[in-house]
């Protein structure tokens, strides 16, 4: 296997100055055109780099957060809870308990003598005050070190309170965000299985006769109702005549999660945050799963068609789906066409959490006539990057677990017009005079489904066509007669 040479990466362009790629990171940067290179991914971040990644806890929190009638208690010192309070745009149509930031706020004595008593007391009080339908206890780094028996505390409180109390093993240092997804899936599965066992206890014949399944039904997995996206997608399935048993976890409720075992099919979105749960459910209850994406026209249509074609016993579903897609696309196209005229040929850089989203974004941007010059993810795996390689044109930069230095370097080099990423990427884009679109869990605008595509196009169009870029020195200043003193490298 030939390795890409370091020289190639330290591109000679004048504007990038002397940004260097750490030796250890070279295998995580790929320049399309060099097909023998195998990207290295799923590694821990290099010590000392400023990674855009968060931690295991972050992964768990993303997945479970939207369950709105559950208590989410973060066991640890205050920071982990403080920084995640209400940062996500996951909406609820009813209770909003998920938006509270609960922490055991461990103090020095707790760290020395253990936090179990405090945890138990906190749980009991909170359950009494807020009457949640279930409770999740997130273990953060420190808990993993001081060795609290969180399982035992949870068991105790569950017995006392009569609600499921589930530990989530999300100690930050025990892996990456992906391990956090897995920890969340474990907790979700426990919850589902409690429901399964309860119904098999109360209605044994339903299970025996195989009637526990709700006909023509699905679970939506990996959809978190950012800006109301779950509602958009649910509406499509309703129009198709497909029953949604539960959404995990967008606009989530404990009760529905617990009925998830009754669905015929799991429809999993996103690059694998919940694939693990789908696999577990397949093994436990024989529920098959498919992977889909709801970003962009093609992917949304494909998702709906895939679900429709699963239900061969009900042909009318497919008919309705065709009708739905046609109707939606027809409504959407004129608006898109108009924006496309301004966007054609513009260059985009993508850096998102999961690679699956990147695939959809590439397609969606193509629809707008745009070119993708950089694409990267925090947590992609080898297959993901292979696929990205196939999808991208020669010259596209592909990055795994990038840091601000690298992102900036390639964004400048590729002269992108827009950066699509999360809050941490925004200032990099803006400082360099590049448009930005937030495509992370913190956005407030729904970007999924057909109408989401229109929102997305609008977001992209608004920023790319803004007149302010003409004033930005990196683009305008070169020819400007007023010399604005901007210091480059640190003096």
């Amino acid at each position, binding site marked *: 296997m030939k390795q890409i040479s370091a020289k190639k990466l330290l591109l000679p362009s004048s*504007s990038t*100055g002397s*940004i260097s790629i*750490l030796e250890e990171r070279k295998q995580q940067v790929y320049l399309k055109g060099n097909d023998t290179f195998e990207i290295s991914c799923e590694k821990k*971040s*290099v*010590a*000392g*780099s*400023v*990674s*855009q*990644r*968060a*931690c*295991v*806890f*972050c992964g768990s929190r993303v997945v479970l957060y939207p369950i709105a009638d559950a208590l989410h*208690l973060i066991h640890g010192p*205050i*920071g*982990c*809870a*403080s*920084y995640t*309070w209400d940062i996500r745009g996951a909406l609820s149509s009813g209770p909003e308990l998920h*938006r509270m930031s*609960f*922490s*055991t*706020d*461990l*103090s020095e004595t707790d*760290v020395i003598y253990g936090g179990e008593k405090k945890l138990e007391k906190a749980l009991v*009080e909170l359950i009494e005050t807020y009457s949640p339908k279930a409770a999740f206890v997130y273990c953060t*780094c*420190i808990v*993993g*070190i*001081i060795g609290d028996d969180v399982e035992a505390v949870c068991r105790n409180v569950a017995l006392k309170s009569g609600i499921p109390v589930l530990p989530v093993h999300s100690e*930050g*240092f*025990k892996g990456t965000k992906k391990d956090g997804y897995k920890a969340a899936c474990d907790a979700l599965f426990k919850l589902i299985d409690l429901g399964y066992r309860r119904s098999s206890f109360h209605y044994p014949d339903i299970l025996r006769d195989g009637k526990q399944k709700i006909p023509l039904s699905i679970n939506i997995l990996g959809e978190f109702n950012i800006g109301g996206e779950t509602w958009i997608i649910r509406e499509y399935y309703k129009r198709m005549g497909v029953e949604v048993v539960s959404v995990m976890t967008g606009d989530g409720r404990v009760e529905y999660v617990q009925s998830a075992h009754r669905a015929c099919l799991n429809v999993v979105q996103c690059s694998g945050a919940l694939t693990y749960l789908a696999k577990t459910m397949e093994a436990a209850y024989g529920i098959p799963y498919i992977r889909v994406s709801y970003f962009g026209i093609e992917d949304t249509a494909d998702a709906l068609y895939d679900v429709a074609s699963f239900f061969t016993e009900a042909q009318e579903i497919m008919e309705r789906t065709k009708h739905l897609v046609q109707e939606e696309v027809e409504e959407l196209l004129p608006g898109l066409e108009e924006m496309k005229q301004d966007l054609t040929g513009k260059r985009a850089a993508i850096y998102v959490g999961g690679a699956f989203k990147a695939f959809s974004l590439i397609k969606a941007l193509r629809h707008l006539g745009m070119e993708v010059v950089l694409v990267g993810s925090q947590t992609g795996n080898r297959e993901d990057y292979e696929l990205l390689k196939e999808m991208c044109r020669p010259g596209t930069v592909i990055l795994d677990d990038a840091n601000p*230095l690298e992102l*900036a*370097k390639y964004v*400048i080099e590729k002269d992108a017009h827009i950066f699509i990423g999360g809050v*941490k990427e925004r*200032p*990099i884009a803006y*400082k*360099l005079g590049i448009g930005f679109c937030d495509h992370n869990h913190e956005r407030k605008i729904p970007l999924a489904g057909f109408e989401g595509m229109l929102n997305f196009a609008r977001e992209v169009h608004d920023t790319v066509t803004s007149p302010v870029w003409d004033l*930005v*020195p*990196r683009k305008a*200043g070169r020819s400007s007669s007023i010399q604005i003193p901007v*210091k480059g*490298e*640190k*003096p």
Partner: protein
Amino acid sequence: MRENRPYTATRNACKMCTPLGAALAFHGIEGTIPLLHGSQGCSTYMRRYLISHFKEPVDIASSNFSEETAIFGGGANLKTAIQNIARQYNPEMIGIATTCLSETIGDDVDMIIESMGDIMKETALVHVSTPSYSGTHVDGFHHAVRAVVDQYNPSGVKNRKNSRARKKINLFPGMLSNEDLRHLKAIFKDINTELALLPDYSERLEGPSWMEYQSIQHGGTPIKEIQKMHRATGSIEFGTILAASVERGNGSAGSLLESRFNIPLASMGIPIGVKATDRFFSLLEKMTLKMIPKKYKEQRGRLIDAYVDGNKYVSKKRAIVYGEEDFVAAMAGFLAEIGIIPVLCASGGKSGLFIESLRSILPENIFKQVSIHQGMDFTDMEEHARTLMPDLAIGNSKGYTMTRHLDIPLVRVGFPIHDRVGGFRTLHIGYKGAQQLFDTIVNTLLQKRQDASEVGYSYM
């Protein structure tokens, strides 16, 4: 019952953790990269958090603990981290703050750093111990400032008192906004006095658009200025609580210079409002033996005139004030001087000095009407506020959930402000800062009244 927090869990905290303050302080030093010794999540979250306020790139590196690191100690990771940062950023200094994790497993950071002495010739390594389970972001901030001053002004250094440098004044402002820091620099320029302001992130965290990538943004207190701090005329430190904690034997940057080099230290509250600003200017006059320029007297004149014009709209109004203890104390002093009663003064901090500070700042008749809570979270605050019939709240964006529930307006000040643009440009201090705060508060109350009115008068 002023300090009891009956609830075990913290619900919507009114504080952040210690290393965040340290990371912010390090950003105010030229050519410095903060490095958190611990797991990746902490530094990523803190970056995100600071970015949401400053809307600027904020790089905070991490030594990225793994499971093995947590078991066998973080020494190797820390060394690799330092070397990698040195290579990528070529910084003048790496500010190393510990996290809960490295503190709990007991890494001896000083020893690890020492063992690197020979390799790291061009980059200084400064370490500050910041376990978050003892203290808040404010403590992390002050500790980092002290650690830097300590490192660059070691005991043995010769104190050339007679030299020219004695005309300089050290100012340790604490956690102020960019605009506050710029205002301080302008004042010193106007009185023609050299200033060593530490930290100063006003340029670095609010710079112009870039021509090219800057691995470390321009700006910050130059290290050579920090090195000369032991030769200054005197030091000023803002914060009544900080001062009280120094009295109790805890060191600060200013007290360190005082005890080590006899640099006189003057402590005072953050100069918010007329009275506090008067105190600041008279202190400056005393220290520099220079007259305060007319410009500031004019500002003061206009401000008091504005107080008069607006007096009826604010008099006897009831406000909730929350945030960092020192900030709340100073803000409460300002509110009292314009006639607003700060009925609830709350902070997530727990210095044990909050009540005494407020007692020293507020007039007796106002103090009696104030409910003071340290170690308070927003849920307790909201419950408590319901009984107090507040007209408005003054504090950072974190209080929005509460004010929305209480249906009262929120005047955004302090840190963080992440639901508005330009929060970092809020000016709080000096006559000019008081002017802006006063106008904003009056207008907020006027708007509330106007919106609620059935008539909707278009005059006041």
